[in-house]
Every structure is written in C-alpha cells, then in structure tokens.
C-alpha cells in the first residue's frame, strides 16, 4: 500500500513538473528555438532510426541463430567458453567497440553499423542461449518421449518457452542501441549525436537538448514497442506479464 501511494504521489509530481516546464519554456521562448532545429531533428532522427534498424536487425538475425546453435547439446563442449567470450565482449564499452571498429573499417556508416551490431548482438545471443538452456529438462524429456524430432522440439517447445527471455534480451539490446547511436556521430555516421555533440561543443544547450530529448523519446518508444510485441507474441502460458 505505501508503495502504491508513493507511486501515485510521484506521478502527480511528474505531471506538475512537466506542466511547469511547459509554462517556463513557452515564456522564455525556448520552444521557438527548438522549432528552429526541427528540420535538422527530423532528418537526423531518420538517420538515427536507420542506423538502429540496420544494426539491430542484423544483430537479431545473427544473435538468435548463434544462441540456438550454442545451446545445442552437441555444442555443449564449446558453448560455455563461447559464452565467456560473449560476456567479456559485453563489458567492453560501446565507445571502445566503435573506436576499434573505426580503426579497422575507417570512418562512416559501415564501421558505425558494425560497431552497433556487435554491441547489440551480445545481449541477444546471451539471452537466447540462457533462455533455451533454461527450458526445464523434464519438458525436454517429455517432448522427446512423445516422439518430437529435434527440430520439432526446438520450434514447438524450446523457442516458445524461451521466447520471453529472448524478448527481454532484444528489448535491452535495442534500447541500448538507440541510446548509443549518438556515439556513431563520432566516427562520422550522423544521427542525433550530431546535435548533441555539436551542442556540447558550442555550449548551446537548446541544440544539445534538441538532439538529446528525441534520443531519449526514441529509446522509450522502442522499449515500449518491443514490450508490446512480447506481450502479444509470447504465448499466454509462458508470459509472466499476462499471468
């Protein structure tokens, strides 16, 4: 109950804060300044989303099969070491990944997408692997015992039961991806980072915010979209959010 009350109070405060921020920004003419950046924001946001979509899409397309392959019993011997490598990979800061990527592939879109791809790949592959390995042995035995082939077991039992965890991985990975794309500007790939970093360099707060706020909004929207997809796609019986 106290938690509920606190949540309610926070919500009221938040609404009030947004309201007063609105009043203040209108009075001080900030809104007009923002509107000045609108065409830039639109163009850069398109670029931003494109970077996310390509790197994220490629990462999902590669990470899920990678997780599946590593979780097969025949791979048991190398799977754990491979996961160790992936775990170490996850701890490398994305900026460092981008820097490394640049040192191999030069500057521009390709190294940026490659760097983002690597950073996004790891959490998805890890969750896919963990999700599949987490399917209870009793379930696998039942599936085998009633005569499902290994492929049928994968698609009818393992993946549906791991789906929630896999989606959690995709959600984390893509949200981070959207938030990281601004760094891609540093190796010459554009995106909303252009406004943020230029704004910082020029001490132009409004310019910086014109990049930062849409980035934050994008992250929130992507997160919500994936959460909704998971809610709809993951079968009710294995979907904690629909229990």
């Amino acid at each position, binding site marked *: 109950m106290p938690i509920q009350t606190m949540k309610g109070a926070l919500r009221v405060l938040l609404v009030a804060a947004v309201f007063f921020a609105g009043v203040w920004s209108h009075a001080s003419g900030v809104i007009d300044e923002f509107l000045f950046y609108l065409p830039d924001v639109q163009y850069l946001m398109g670029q931003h989303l494109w970077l996310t979509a390509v790197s994220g899409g490629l990462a999902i397309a590669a990470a899920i099969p990678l997780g599946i392959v590593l979780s097969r019993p025949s791979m048991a011997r190398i799977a754990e070491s491979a996961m160790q490598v992936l775990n170490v990979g996850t701890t490398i800061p994305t900026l460092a990944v981008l820097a490394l990527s640049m040192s191999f592939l030069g500057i521009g879109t390709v190294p940026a997408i490659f760097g983002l791809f690597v950073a996004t790949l790891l959490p998805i592959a890890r969750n896919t692997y963990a999700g599949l390995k987490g399917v*209870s042995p*009793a*379930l696998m*035995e*039942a*599936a*085998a*015992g*009633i*005569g*499902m*082939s290994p492929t*049928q077991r994968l698609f*009818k*039992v393992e993946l*549906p*039961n791991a*789906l929630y965890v896999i989606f959690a991985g995709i959600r984390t990975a893509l949200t981070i991806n959207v938030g990281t794309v601004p760094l891609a500007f540093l190796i010459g790939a554009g995106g909303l980072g252009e406004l943020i970093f230029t704004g910082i360099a020029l001490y132009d707060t409004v310019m910086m915010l014109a990049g930062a706020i849409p980035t934050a909004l994008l992250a929130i929207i992507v997160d919500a979209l994936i959460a909704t997809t998971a809610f709809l796609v993951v*079968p*009710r*019986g*294995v979907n904690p959010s629909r*229990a």
Partner: protein
Amino acid sequence: MIQLDSLTKVFDTPKGAVVAADHIDMEVPAGEICVLLGPSGCGKTTTLKMINRIIRPTSGKVYINGEDTTGMDTQDLRRGIGYVIQQIGLFPNMTIEENITVVPRLLGWDKARYKERAREMMAMIAMEPDAFLKRYPNELSGGQQQRIGVARALAADPPVMLMDEPFGAIDPINRAVIQDEFLKMQQELKKTIMFVSHDIDEAIKMGDRIAIFREGKLVQSSTPDDLLAAPRNAFVESFLGEDRALKRLNLVKVRDVVSDDIGCVRPDDTLEAALARIDDFGYQSSILMVNDRRQPVGIITRSVARTTKGYCRDHFLGIPASVNLDDDLRKVASLMFAHDTTWLPCVDDDGRVCGQITQRSMTRHLGSRYRALEGDVSPNATALTDTTPKE
C-alpha cells in the same frame, strides 16, 4: 506385450562404470500393468527409459508386440508408446487442448479428428472440456495437470504405456483418487503398461505383476499376492515390510473367502428354535436374523436365546456391519476390529445375505497360500499359480 531381452545399461561416469540395469529379462503380457518396484537408484527408471530410448541400451533388446524395436526409427517408436513422467512435463506454452493433441498432430491427424479426440480424452479423465481445453497448464492444480499428462499419453491410443512414478508428485488423497480413476480406465482400455514406483502400496494396488529390482538386477517378478506370500529372499522380504501379511488383505476379496454355509433365523422363529440352530451350526455367540427378502436385520445372541422365552422379532440386537462380496479383506478386518466380532454377514449387490466371513476363514485363506508356496520358490513357483493365460 513388452519383452525385455537381456537389457543392460552401463553408465560411464568419472567415478567409473555404473551398471544401472544388468541383463534384465522380463515380459509384460498384453493388457497388464507391471510395476517396477525397488529402492531409489536400483535401476527402475533406467530400465523403463531404455524401452523408448530416452536412454540408449548398452546391450540387449526390446520387443513390443513381438517386434524387435532395434531397427525402428526412434520418433516412430516413441509416437507409438504413451509416456507419463513424474514431473508431468506439460508444455506450458500450449493450451490444454494443444497438449493433449500433440501426438495426434505429430501423427498428422486432421483437425476435426484431433479436436474431437481432445474432448473424448477430457471425458475419459472426468474433466469438463469447455472449462479446460482453452486454458494453460499453469492455471491447473497439480492433480489436474497429472490427469492431462495421462490424457496426453493416451491421446493417440498407443497399445503400450510407460509411466515413471506418474502419481509421485501428487498429495496422498488426490493420488488415491487418480489411481482409482486410472485403474477404472485401464479396465476398459487394456493397455500394456510398465509402471515405475518406489511405493509398495501403490505397486500392490496398481500392479497385475510386480518386478522387484535391486542394484540393477531383477530380483523377483510375481503377482502381488505371490510376492507378499512368498518373497524370494531376505532383501525382498525386508523391502515388503513386516506387515506384508496385512498388505495381502488388500488383495483378497470377500468373494474369495466367503462361506455360503450360513445359518439364519426369521423374525417369527421362537428363541428356542434359534438356540437349537445356534447349536446345530456350532456358532459361539450369535446367529443372524434375516427378513423375507433375506436382508440382514439383526442378530440373536446365544445368551438371550438360552435365558429368554418368546419370538426372535422381539429380542434381536442390531447387526454390527455387513460386507459386500467385492470388498477387500482389509475392510473386513477393520470392521471386525471396530465391532469386536469374529464374523460378519456378506451381502450381494441387492443387499441379500449370501454367506458369512469369519476371522478363521481369513487366516486360513492367507495361511494356505503361504503353505502352498513355502519351500518352492523357484521361478516356476510363480508360473504354477499364474492364472493369466499366455497368448
């Protein structure tokens, strides 16, 4: 029919080889339940799982309905065998209907047929189809889930079923209910079932035949009654427990022991006539009084008959209890203890007296089986008393 021919499994473990099943030879006749029984780790599960190749045998063969399964495709083999495990293993991502129809769908049944089948199976396990078919396993109680587990195994109507401690995870009350339901189903379905248990009472209740395992070896395979009457060695004897004679009470029906030679009196008889009849039949304490339709209404005690004048209808006592021909001796013994009596009248399904059962006849019946089997406990001993025809 399931036949195991010298079936052996050796596990290679870091600590060396473990012989989990050592040259197991056995046979489960068609339509019977054979319970594999023994302490934990004796190789029951290993033996069972070699039949559907969840565990690959090291050597030996499995025949199902006379056919050597060695050359059969693993998936085909398994789809023809119902499989129920203790952990139930319903697929949480599938509805109850999808769970039940999973094997029919693997076998490529058309939709109308497997949907119809799901409803049939629900009726068989006494669960309301409309209430449950669209639900998910996590919305059901443990007992309901295990019923669905059984329904899933039976859905494609396999002739053979393997059940590994299927009711082990259910609370005792529900377990007894599900066991009874299952036995009732089995009477109609006549599946050939291999059933793993570590619970002697469950084995006696479910098994047409019990196979006792110890450290990977099959020690004795007999009908429950023979097993309890004549354990082959000290291990089996201690495993069955010191009250094994009492356990046999479960297995014997009143029908097997009843004596139809019972003297009765009518309400219109005089007490004098009653006393004469008590003496004629050599009864110790009392005689049964029945009405015109031979239903038991009371007893006349010897002391009353000797000391009083008059008609039986005015001087009888209530009957303590009566038993049905299909009751087991455990119930009879319990009633005798409760009512401090050495005999009870037996009634048929219409409630008419058809005989009596006495403590002496019970002890004699149980004892005679001991004597018949005593001293002859070679493998043939069980065959001699085996009444089930071989096909």
